[in-house]
């Protein structure tokens, strides 16, 4: 039942619609409102405060590991939430979901934060003790472990993310080069590498996106494995928990989805992209978030039930240390915000099919992720003698001082700042992908009812 005349007519209107989109989205690129710059300045100041905090910390020296717990947690949070976000776009791209198109860029843009976390990692390197004579991922590996390999992983991840972002944004950059006047034209011309959108270029871009996407996912999981073991598990004596690296990465995926939801909400309500970002995107992501939240509980439960049933003294002390002892509060927060609240929110289809509900769930999950990272890293860093066979005495809680607070707030602010600045170079809603969608998403009559026809090109 295809009415050819209708399709022709729609083809014409389609063209106009596409031009409209291009003009609109690139127009926003040309000039940002004062409100934007206000936010940027505020964030900038906070970022500087954060840097000051780091400097203060550095004066305390690197020897005392316990002092650096909050710094490490902040780094871990960036690695978890911000760098987890791009996976949302690449995963949904792999399954060819049309609903993803308007949100792909919003999530990919978070890759720029990789630069910040790589810089932060420089200090992390000097905090952990050498591997000799202690339980470690590397056994007695001769050279470079863990420092070399960990930093390589972190840097690769960042580079891969930037590559992904660049490849995905290339057509839009070219469009900006052609249309947007002003000082940044030179930059765009340089970046666009005379992209003309020939079929070969498009095909190449598609392949590149696939490959980079796969690599990013693998690097993400791998980096989380290294960091989680070298900076958390290996520092807690008697903690042998082989699901932990997977859990660490899982929280990454979960909070990646969450932070994307938050970004979408802000783009919709504050950024003024209501036209493009609609319930459909929130709906799709909220289903993903629900699944990942369930997995959160599943992974924690598998670890818990094994230790609880095992009843070995070593296991018991780890449970008390990380869940029910000094960090019970943080763990409770992580549990509520990482699993229970989002679960209770998102099982209702009414909530999932809204914009506010998923946004809210996203915020909650982010809080949970941060609490979880604090719990793990602060706890692990507060252990004195890591060469023991089992944790004999549970070390006391380590409370944040002013410097810690400055670091935590400042660095997160810095990450957001980078994101905002990036949106000045690359439109936060992918022009070419949204335009492409108009081809493949058609509304038609099916006998007496309206239906949506989704086409999936190979």
């Amino acid at each position: 039942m295809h009415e050819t005349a209708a399709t022709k007519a729609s083809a014409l209107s389609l063209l106009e619609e596409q031009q409209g989109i291009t003009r609109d989205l690139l127009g926003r690129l040309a000039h940002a409102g004062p409100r934007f710059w206000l936010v940027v300045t505020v964030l900038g100041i906070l970022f500087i405060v954060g840097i000051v905090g780091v400097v203060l910390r550095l004066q305390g020296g690197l020897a005392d590991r316990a002092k650096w717990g909050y710094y490490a947690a902040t780094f871990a949070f960036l690695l978890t939430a911000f760098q987890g976000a791009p996976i949302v776009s690449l995963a949904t791209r792999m399954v060819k979901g049309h609903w993803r198109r308007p949100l792909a860029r919003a999530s990919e843009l978070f890759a720029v934060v990789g630069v910040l976390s790589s810089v932060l990692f420089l200090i992390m390197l000097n905090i952990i003790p050498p591997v000799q004579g202690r339980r470690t991922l590397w056994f007695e590996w001769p050279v470079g472990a863990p420092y070399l390999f960990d930093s390589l992983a972190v840097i690769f991840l960042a580079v891969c993310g930037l590559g992904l972002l660049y490849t995905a944004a290339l057509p839009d950059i070219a469009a900006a080069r052609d249309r947007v006047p002003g000082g940044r034209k030179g930059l765009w011309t340089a970046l666009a590498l005379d992209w003309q959108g020939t079929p070969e270029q498009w095909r190449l871009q598609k392949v590149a996106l696939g490959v980079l996407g796969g690599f990013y996912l693998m690097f993400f999981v791998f980096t989380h494995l290294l960091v989680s073991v070298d900076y958390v598990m290996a520092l807690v004596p008697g903690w042998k928990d082989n699901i932990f690296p997977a859990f660490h990465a899982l929280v990454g995926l979960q909070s990646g989805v969450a932070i994307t939801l938050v970004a979408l909400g802000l783009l919709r309500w504050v950024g003024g992209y209501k036209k493009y970002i609609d319930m459909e995107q929130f709906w799709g992501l909220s289903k993903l978030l629900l699944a990942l939240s369930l997995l959160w509980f599943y992974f924690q439960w598998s670890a818990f039930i094994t230790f609880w049933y095992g009843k070995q003294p070593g296991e018991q002390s780890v449970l008390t240390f990380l869940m029910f002892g000094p960090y019970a509060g943080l763990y409770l927060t992580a549990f509520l915000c990482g699993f229970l609240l989002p679960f209770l929110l998102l099982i209702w289809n009414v909530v999932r099919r809204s914009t506010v509900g998923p946004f809210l769930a996203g915020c909650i999950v982010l809080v949970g992720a941060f609490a979880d990272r604090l719990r793990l890293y602060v706890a692990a860093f507060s252990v004195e003698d890591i060469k023991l066979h089992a944790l004999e005495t549970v070390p006391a809680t380590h409370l944040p001082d002013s410097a810690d607070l400055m670091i935590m707030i400042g660095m997160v602010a810095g990450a957001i700042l980078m994101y905002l600045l990036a949106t000045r170079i690359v439109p936060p809603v992918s022009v070419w992908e949204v335009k492409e969608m108009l081809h493949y998403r058609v509304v038609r009559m099916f006998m007496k009812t309206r239906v949506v026809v989704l086409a999936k090109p190979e």
Partner: protein
Amino acid sequence: MAKRTALGLYKDAHAAAAAVENLKQGRFTDQDIDILSGTPYPEGAFGEHHIGHKLFVFPFIGAACGFSVGLLLTAGTQLSYPMVTGGKPILSVPPMAIIMYEGTMLGAILFTILGILFESRLPRVRKSVYDARITEGYVGIRVACDAQRFDAALNALKQAGADDVKFDTQPGAATA
């Protein structure tokens, strides 16, 4: 009063839709008209009204029942037969949680099945006019109405270009 039933069979779904339209114009309501097809059409394809259902209530009731049964069994057996094993508490919650979870899910599934049957009005014992060709791609439009409006119904069905029209011979009785 006596009701009679007619069934129009259409090879072309559009024709069937037209028949429904005719009937609607003939002041036949959705209650009188039944659309029988061997394939699920998108909702409203024949201009039929939206079908409401309360299926989503059932799993929650089921879950509640299942959960309580699970709780009863696990807690009850442990308390009524208090044996210390491996230094675990007499009322060990984590194992209970696992079994209660299974109970909950089982309850939810069972009630959902019941809900599906109930909401789709199955099983259906009372036989009415039917034709085997419906599961062969034909669409059947069935009208049940008072004896005196019966001819109007037949005409409406025929007008839309029915490939075949069947009806019960005498009021009430059905032929298949």
